[in-house]
């Protein structure tokens, strides 16, 4: 039931809405079919980002893929938390360390052990449109713990204009989701892993811009 529900929401409704009306275009989307379990690591500008990535997933992947979202934002009220969970399968984590010492890495790690996939936005928040912020180190800690799980860097551009932070009116603009090739973390050094991913996403962006502009 759950997978049928998600399939209808994302593959049938959302994906067509994003492609035809909103103007989201995918590149190298086939990389998703080559892997059963992965961590999608992407830059973040808009709520459209999560929708665009979820809509790229296949029937079986939809059920077992969790976008990691900020519990202090999406879990603010029980209703907001329920809606987020119902529609996105989100894994809500606390961005700030709380007194009970609940470790966000542990929650993510547990779902990877179960065989599930994750969608991560290491910038933490959407930030200013079309600007990339410093990556947080959570993704490094996670990959250090699970070196056998592939990560796929994703570069997204244009979503910040469609629905910027603080805006409610959606305006269509052409926007792009560019998937990179899957790879595995090579080192044990958290910082190095984070830096490597950040560089890969920036490189995807540079290559993409180059393919359009002179």
């Amino acid at each position, binding site marked *: 039931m759950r997978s049928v529900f998600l399939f209808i929401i994302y593959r049938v409704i959302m994906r067509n809405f994003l492609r035809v009306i909103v103007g989201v275009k995918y590149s190298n989307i086939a990389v998703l079919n080559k892997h059963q379990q992965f961590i999608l690591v992407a830059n973040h500008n808009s709520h459209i980002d999560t929708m665009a990535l979820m809509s790229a997933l296949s029937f079986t992947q939809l059920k077992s893929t969790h976008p990691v979202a900020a519990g202090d934002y999406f879990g603010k009220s029980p209703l907001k938390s329920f809606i987020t969970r119902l529609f996105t399968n989100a894994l809500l984590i606390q961005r700030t360390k709380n007194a009970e010492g609940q470790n966000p890495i542990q929650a993510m790690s547990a779902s990877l052990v179960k065989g599930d996939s994750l969608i991560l936005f290491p910038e933490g928040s959407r930030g200013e449109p079309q600007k990339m912020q410093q990556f947080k180190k959570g993704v490094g800690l996670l990959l250090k713990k699970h070196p056998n799980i592939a990560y796929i860097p994703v570069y997204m551009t244009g979503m910040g204009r469609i629905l910027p932070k603080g805006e409610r009116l959606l305006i269509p603009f052409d926007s792009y989701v560019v998937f990179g090739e899957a790879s595995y973390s090579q080192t044990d050094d958290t910082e190095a892993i984070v830096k490597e991913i950040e560089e890969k996403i920036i490189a995807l962006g540079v290559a993409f811009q180059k393919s359009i502009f*002179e």
Partner: protein
Amino acid sequence: MNLAQFSANKEVAFIILLIIGLLVFATLLFFIWGKLKPEANLIELKLRTKSWWTMALVFILAIVINPIISYFAFGLLSFMALREITTISKNVRDVDRRIMIWCYIAIPIQFILAYNGYFNLFVIFIPVVMFIFISFMLVIKGETTEIGRSMSVIPTQLMLTVFSLSHLAFLLSLPQIAGFNAGGRGLLLFVVFITEINDVFQFTWGKLLGRHAIIPKISPNKTWEGFIGGIITTTVLGYFLRFLTPFSEVESLVVSFVIACAGFVGDVVVSAVKRDIGLKDTGNLIPGHGGILDRIDSLAITSVVFFHIVYNLYYS
């Protein structure tokens, strides 16, 4: 219109078969060419063929099932073209983002006017009503720095995409004339076919004989030889396709000549818009993505020019 009527309208049926034949030929040609010479860059040609297939299929569907499909198809095409031009345009400020919703609302209105054949409202809605309305909305927004640029760029974007393509839809709403069987469908086929074939021949003659660049700063591939060769070929073809139109022999020659020139104008105008923002001449290079402006560049001008010639000669 059903299949029986479709086969009864011999002019339209003949040209559709001709177009399908040409498309099959072009598809095979580029496929074999690509296999024999993998290093040849055929992306642009293949994309063009693909969009022609789409156009032809939509046109046939509209004839066989319901003409309203054409209005939706042109509406969707102008929507995607407008989205593309507003995305790549760097001349609009961030505060103008919300103004764009009015441009998108204008699309269904313009196509409803076309569908109902309200000629007078149709011709003024975007150039006059939307022009004033957008300027006023920009003023209400209150951000005056560089407001003049937005006031001119946004209506121009609407003109190049929505206004121009809606004329193709309006051709289908023109009334029947006694003794002219092909009707609006024939006119639509004529202008689209002549425009596309003009593009092809300007390109082909340019490749074969091109020596002297015509406007090197905008479009280095455009040559005098391609331009003149294209015009001559298009004019001759237009003469033989005049059975799709109510034109006399002389009229068909003049109109085809004008379409050929207008197609060139549309091509270089869109090229200049792209050159201004540093976009590559072939548009978006990711196969199958975007590049709608590249497909409709010449149509954006020929549709309006052709429509008004026909309207003033036969329908006013």
